[in-house]
């Protein structure tokens, strides 16, 4: 067997009908181009949408929920031990929103090797006083640095400087919708009233835009210390601890562990956003399905062209066989032709796919809900290129297999006698 000779013959046969070859190759090129562009775009979009949620969501949240105590006295009573006890209208006890012993919990979390970072948080419902009208809102007390590092807080601050939250005492960052309602600009003072009736002036140092309009109409941020001051609470008052893990998949287990260990409520991200992963998965599935369909269609194109080529080259096949080329040689020649089309078309497809992705990446995509995004998102993941190239080779191999086998089995006597 002489692979170079096989290669040479294949090349000559291919180039002899270069237009036909080109048409077949363009089919592959087109499908690979679309495959790459589609998947890059879809993955980019998925990443963006996931990021929209995941960037701002803690992997594990520790908090205290106000709820009725599950251990009601009747259940403890020995007289009703073996009965079903139906109690209606159970009221919540006088439990506090505060995470108990937050200082010690934070110390313990910082030592945990699985934890990549944590951010304390205080939620304070307030009224913003706008002349005679009170607008309900929420001030979230955050540690600006931790929040920025873990949840990209800075990216959503569209005006002003987020670090002023710590530097300027009594400062607030207003949600963009809220600021519009209050007609508040940078440096203005807004007045808030807490649930307890305390009145408080706060200086506006920035605006926050999450992209979720309803949220931006009520949300605002202040530093932990300011929020504690508004609420009249001591310095260890914290209503929530947000924890980010190195491995997100551990979140459910970690949440269960913390709930037991710290005797608080703990919620993991998977429970909180179960529908989210499903959406990403289905979108990815659809784009792969479309991409692979494109490749299969291209495969049929190659199959047809090879079949035609074999009919045209019957004489050549007969003479090759008569002069000493075996069936497997001829089979190999046509396999090389098919793979040649696949590799050539596939390589061009990868290039064009990359260029198309670049082009999509340049298209402006400005939307109020995504302040950090200026153009359509593209994920330049090498895995797509790997899948694209291996699938183009696989499809052409499959498309070439049957025609090549047929060519290998052609009986030269039938051809020569047929003249």
């Amino acid at each position, binding site marked *: 067997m*002489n692979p170079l000779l096989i290669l040479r013959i294949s090349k*000559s046969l291919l180039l002899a009908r270069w237009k036909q070859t080109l048409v077949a190759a363009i089919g592959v090129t087109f499908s690979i181009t679309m495959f790459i562009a589609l998947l890059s775009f879809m993955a980019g979009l998925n990443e963006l949408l996931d990021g929209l949620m995941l960037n701002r969501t803690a992997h594990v949240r520790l908090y205290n929920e106000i709820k009725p105590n599950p251990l009601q006295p009747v259940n403890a009573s020995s007289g009703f031990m073996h009965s079903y006890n139906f109690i209606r209208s159970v009221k919540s006890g006088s439990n506090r929103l505060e995470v108990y012993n937050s200082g010690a919990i934070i110390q313990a979390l910082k030592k945990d090797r699985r934890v990549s970072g944590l951010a304390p948080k205080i939620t304070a419902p307030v009224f913003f006083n706008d002349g005679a009208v009170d607008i309900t809102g929420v001030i979230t007390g955050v540690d600006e640095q931790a929040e920025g590092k873990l949840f990209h807080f800075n990216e959503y601050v569209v005006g002003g400087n987020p670090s002023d939250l710590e530097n300027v005492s009594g400062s607030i960052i207003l949600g963009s919708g809220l600021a519009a309602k209050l007609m508040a600009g940078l440096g203005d003072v807004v007045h808030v009233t807490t649930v307890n009736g305390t009145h408080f002036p706060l200086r506006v140092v920035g605006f926050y835009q999450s992209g979720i309009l309803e949220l931006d109409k009520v949300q605002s941020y202040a530093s932990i210390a300011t929020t504690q001051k508004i609420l009249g609470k001591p310095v260890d008052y914290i209503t929530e601890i947000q924890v980010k893990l190195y491995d997100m998949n551990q979140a459910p287990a970690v949440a269960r562990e913390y709930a037991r260990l710290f005797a608080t409520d703990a919620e993991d991200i998977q429970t909180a956003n179960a529908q989210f992963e499903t959406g990403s998965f289905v979108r990815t599935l659809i784009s792969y399905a479309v991409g692979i369909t494109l490749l299969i269609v291209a495969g049929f194109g190659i199959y047809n062209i090879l079949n035609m080529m074999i009919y045209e080259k019957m004489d050549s096949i007969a*003479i*090759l066989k008569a*002069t000493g*080329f075996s*069936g497997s*040689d001829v089979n190999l020649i046509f396999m090389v032709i098919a793979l040649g089309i696949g590799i050539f078309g596939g390589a061009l497809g990868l290039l064009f796919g990359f260029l198309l992705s670049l082009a999509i990446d340049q298209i402006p995509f400005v939307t109020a809900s995504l302040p950090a995004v200026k153009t359509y998102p593209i994920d330049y993941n090498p895995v797509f290129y790997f899948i694209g190239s291996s699938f183009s080779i696989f499809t052409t191999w499959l498309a070439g297999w049957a025609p090549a086998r047929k060519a290998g089995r052609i009986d030269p006597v039938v051809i*020569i006698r047929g003249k």
Partner: protein
Amino acid sequence: MEENIVLQASHICKSFHDPVKVKILDDITFSIKKGEFVAVVGKSGCGKSTLLYILSTMDTDYEGDLLIGGEVMRGRSEKQLARVRNEKIGFVFQFHYLLAEFTVIENVMLPGLKLAAFTEEQVKTRALDRLGQLGIRQLAEKKANQLSGGEKQRVAIARALINDPSIIMCDEPTGNLDKKNSLVVFDIFKKLAEEHQQTLLVVTHDEEFAKNTQRIIEMEDGRIIRQ
């Protein structure tokens, strides 16, 4: 067995079974010595082409035995038979059957490259020698489909010669040529047989061509009636 017997057919029979059994070849037995120039003649449909395909190992559906260079061809794999054709048999067909995608020199070189007994350089030199021997060296770089019928047939002969085969088989080599070109081709064959002791087996219905060969095998209805 004699040393100089190139090809031997013993009791070769072949039938077509579709739709009824028809005997095409019946008990064909003969042998060809080295350097012989043999013509197989007979009317159309007497089975001479069928016999040629069997002798050339391309058709394996027959009874009896075929020996080429003293070796039995029966029971060999398709790959082994291809090797035998490559190494020991040269072909010239009625319709010249050159590969249109290749130049003349490449056409001639292909079987040599397949055999790989020589380097590419050597094969090229040999190919040019063969072309020169047949007086068409100047056509070497032309595309095969730019040639006239007579030229194509000479290229086909050059290709048949490239591996120094022990026998050259021809199927109506002059069937598609005019008088002048037929003469040229015949002269080439004659010269090959006489000067180079090249064994030749030619199937033809060209009476004049056959008359000038050294030996005639005449067939009728699948049998050899005279040899």
